[in-house]
């Protein structure tokens, strides 16, 4: 059964690669997606909708960046949430203490996350499979412990208190919820576009090769360690952007953002949405947040509902939603081809 699934996904991927889209096509889709997102609040008056989209942006960027590791490179990280937390804390601390502008704080935060990812990645990416997963988890717990213990800087378990200042920059006032919404949408679309370009670049195909056969990749001259470290750092940077959006949404940063449960949610989102398509994690994010928001409104037994959904995807579909849809479309296309021939 698993062989059949593997073959199908290989067929899907090769079919995908056989018809490469021009680079500007993705930019066009990004512009259209951004335009739709911006007009959404004008079409629907619900105040919960912008909140939902902002959270989708934060978790969507985080989960998609995790998929660069899990889906494209075959590196299952259990500690990716540390970069989400670093993004939130780095940005929050810079805004509270350094008195810098928001763009400066964002750039500095991404630099901090990148440096942390280089150090942590240099140790972790040499390890294989379960060892990689557990050492990344160990680093995450280390960072979480540092956040809890370094109370004068981080506020300990109470988090960064007193709100995050949002000085106006380039005419954008992030204390205005509409501006924050549009800004989050812009970060989401730009982030996804950049990650899409990475995934579709020769480097992206190198990652796929490393995932499928790292020995072969190294035999043809690819420096596997360097490629893995590069994608680890890139994924950390995008996860940090997710953390920045979340810190702006809650106007603070809390140790829970760097806890292992955030990484667990990232893995779960990838399971829900699927890892063989680029937009799978984004679909998973929307599904999880809808599920979360609906279940917490209707029942206190949120965990039970989530458990049933996990079982449905794990035992019923045996893959993420987007994987299922893509496979189904592929099989339909093939069967229709068969009928015509």
């Amino acid at each position, binding site marked *: 059964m698993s062989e059949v699934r593997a073959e199908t996904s290989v067929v899907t991927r090769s079919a995908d690669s056989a018809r490469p889209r021009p680079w500007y096509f993705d930019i066009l889709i990004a512009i259209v997606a951004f335009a739709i997102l911006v007009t959404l609040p004008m079409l629907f008056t619900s105040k919960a909708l912008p909140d939902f989209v902002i959270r989708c942006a934060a978790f969507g960027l985080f989960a998609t960046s995790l998929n660069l590791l899990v889906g494209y490179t075959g590196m299952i990280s259990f500690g990716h949430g540390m970069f989400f937390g670093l993004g939130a804390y780095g940005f929050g601390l810079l805004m509270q203490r350094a008195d810098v502008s928001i763009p400066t704080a964002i750039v500095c935060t991404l630099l901090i996350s990148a440096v942390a990812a280089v150090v942590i990645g240099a140790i972790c990416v040499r390890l294989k499979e379960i060892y990689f997963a557990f050492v990344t988890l160990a680093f995450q717990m280390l960072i979480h412990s540092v956040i809890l213990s370094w*109370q004068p800087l981080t506020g300990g378990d109470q*988090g960064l208190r007193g*709100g995050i200042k949002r000085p106006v920059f380039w005419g954008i006032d992030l204390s205005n919820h509409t501006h924050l919404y549009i800004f989050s949408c812009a970060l989401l679309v730009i982030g996804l576009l950049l990650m899409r370009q990475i995934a579709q670049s020769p480097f992206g195909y190198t990652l796929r090769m490393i995932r499928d056969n790292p020995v072969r990749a190294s035999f043809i001259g690819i420096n596997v360690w360097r490629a893995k470290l590069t994608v680890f750092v890139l994924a950390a940077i995008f996860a940090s952007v997710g953390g920045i959006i*979340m810190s702006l949404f809650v106007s*603070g940063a809390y140790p829970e953002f760097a806890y292992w449960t955030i990484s667990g949610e990232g893995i779960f989102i990838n399971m829900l949405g699927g890892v063989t398509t680029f937009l799978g994690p984004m679909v998973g994010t929307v599904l999880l947040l809808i599920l979360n928001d609906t279940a917490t409104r209707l029942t206190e037994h949120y965990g039970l509902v989530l458990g049933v959904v996990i079982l449905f995807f794990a035992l019923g579909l045996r893959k993420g939603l987007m994987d299922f849809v893509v496979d189904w479309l592929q099989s339909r296309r093939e069967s229709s081809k068969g009928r015509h021939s």
Partner: protein
Amino acid sequence: MTTPSKPGINRRTTLALMGAGAFTAATPWVARAQAKTIKIGMPTILSGRVAQLGTSSRNAVMIEVEKINAAGGLAGRQIEMVIRDSKGQPQEAARIARELVNTDGCEMLIDGEASSGSFAVHEVARDIGVLCIHTCSEASSLTADPKQHIPNAFRCVRQGIHDSIAGGNYAAGIAKAKGLKKWATCSPDYAYGRDTTAEFVTYLKHFAPDVEIISETWPKLFQPDYTETVTKILQAKPQALYSALWGGDLTSYIDQANIYAMFTQMEVFAVNMADYTALTVVKNLPKGIHSGNRYIKTFPATAENAAWGDAYKAKYKEYPTNWSWQNATAMMFLSEAVKKVNSTDGKKVAEALTGLTIKCPFGADGTVTMRADDHTLIGYAIGWGTTIPTEPYVPDVQSGDWKQILALEAEWKKSKGYT
């Protein structure tokens, strides 16, 4: 035998459509009638390790809501509580708080979040300006730090600094009487544990300057095994031990320390012992543990407090918790503030709440006050006593002196740069 259906709209369908049309037309009036109710949102923790405390908060709120509604509601409007589980996650607490106000139409918030969650809800209150009463977070900085101050947020919760001053004074008295000079501490390794312990030690030394701390242990929050901690303390041979462990951590610690007969070898001061969640769970509650009061129905020893505790137990088949009385008090404050201004307008209620003193079964002198300058609760029953293994568990509680507490709290605020 069945009747064959005819094509087109028959009489019954026409009547049904007319009925539906009439209902649709009447809906605005129905909705307007429902708008007479006032929705109050409450994010709290109803799942995970502290779910029992969140549930006890909800229970207490509902008891008071029933009383207020039976008496005519808030300015004639019946209260409808909308209570949601944040799972103890600050981002969920913030999301739910926003949703409760923006989507569900809640006009006020009772924030049943602890620690970081309360700060997240505080930022939502700052952002959207809704009236918010924090009912569970004991972190002093939530209201003591002027950076946190907003006109629409209040805190109806006991505070670590108040407990430490009262506890330090009580423990110093015992230390002087029994000659306890060598002390050890054992508290959870996070901000609450470290802050509360540091403050307790400060005030213990303030009242008994010759006290010396010879051992400190900081077990992790929710740690399952305390063997190492217990043996380390026993090896140090202190005369007294202070602990800020709470809930399941405290009960596990006592059960495990009992094996080593720790409680016969030193005086133990556990600030969070006198709460039914701990008292009723420990397998063999040792006699003579010194504890601050959390909630017990015998302190303050008034008929009103006992009646409230009994009513709670009769309704929910268990005793209330520390979070229960705080949430009940918040609802009492709301009710009195609305009566004072005869309005449910958030701004007016906030003005009325500022500096308000109300009668309350949990007050040290039968009243509690929402202090005007930092919007926080003072005057609640605070005291220390020693445990016995059966009810009433802490028979003689010595009341703390609020004059002394307030004077030392003011000094503490200055030392922290808050004033």
